[in-house]
């Protein structure tokens, strides 16, 4: 079983080497001439005010938690889809119930306005 994963590890290794190679090349070859203006955070020419970390909309949090929930849902659906034909109607009904509960979740979010981005 593990031998099937050997090429994957090699692939990750090669990809990392390629990325590190590019990274090192640019760090070594590029000139470094810092000036006070260059070191300021770039804000289209105007001076930056306040902390560089703004408070962000809580919408992003809601999106993230919805993503976690539906990602787990997807993780359950993939094995089911691969065995779908063998499971037949029983498996199908089980998945319909599963999806129905999550559809209710989605409708709940929808109605509560968690999917609205206008302010």
């Amino acid at each position, binding site marked *: *079983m*593990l031998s099937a994963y050997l090429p994957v590890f090699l692939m990750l290794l090669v990809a990392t080497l390629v990325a590190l190679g590019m990274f090192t090349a640019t760090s070594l070859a590029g000139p470094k001439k810092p000036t006070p203006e260059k070191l300021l955070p770039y804000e289209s020419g105007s001076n930056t005010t306040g902390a560089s970390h703004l408070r962000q909309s809580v919408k992003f*949090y809601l999106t993230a938690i919805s993503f976690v*929930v539906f*990602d787990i849902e997807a993780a359950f659906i993939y*094995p089911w889809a691969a065995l779908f034909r063998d499971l037949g109607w029983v498996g199908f009904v089980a998945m319909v119930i599963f999806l129905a509960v999550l559809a209710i979740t989605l409708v709940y979010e929808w109605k509560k*306005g968690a999917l609205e981005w206008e302010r």
Partner: protein
Amino acid sequence: MTDAKFLLFFFCAAIALAGAIGTIASKLPLRAAMSLLVTIIALAGLYLTLDAQLLAAIQVLVYAGAVVVLFVFVIMLIGPAPETSSAPGSVVWRMLSLVGIAMITATFAFSFVDVASTWVAPPAGFGTVRGVAGEMYTKALVPFEIVAMTLTTAIVGALAIARSKTASELAEMKRRRVAEDASAAAQPAE
């Protein structure tokens, strides 16, 4: 257990431990989250040594791809914490906690060493997508459905914390704002 698995086990275990130490030792929240990502991916490697392929993939998909992303989101939302030094615990307490850790480690180590278990080859199809699906969707249907309920609970909880305005509430707010603007415009400037 074959030699390759043994090698992979120690490699992944070392990385997982290093990541775990990084997670608790780092003072910057995002670096801690990245260390956690390292631990999670190393754990997926440990699942591979146990022939649990699907579980390894799900581990990376859900934990590295979703849970860590959620952590990163939250860290990005709240911004950096104000600089705080770690709590000034006394030397005695630190010593005591070290002793506690050593005792717990020893307990676990000896309890596992005592178990005279032999390595059993897993049955055919163990840990594959079809193997897990066959078990899960025939013998574990009720827990499977309960998972959906649990996920719903998560959403309900998140909405309770961070509920935003519904469409009708937004319309109401807008109407009120327009009315205020209109009344402000109607009054003569002082």
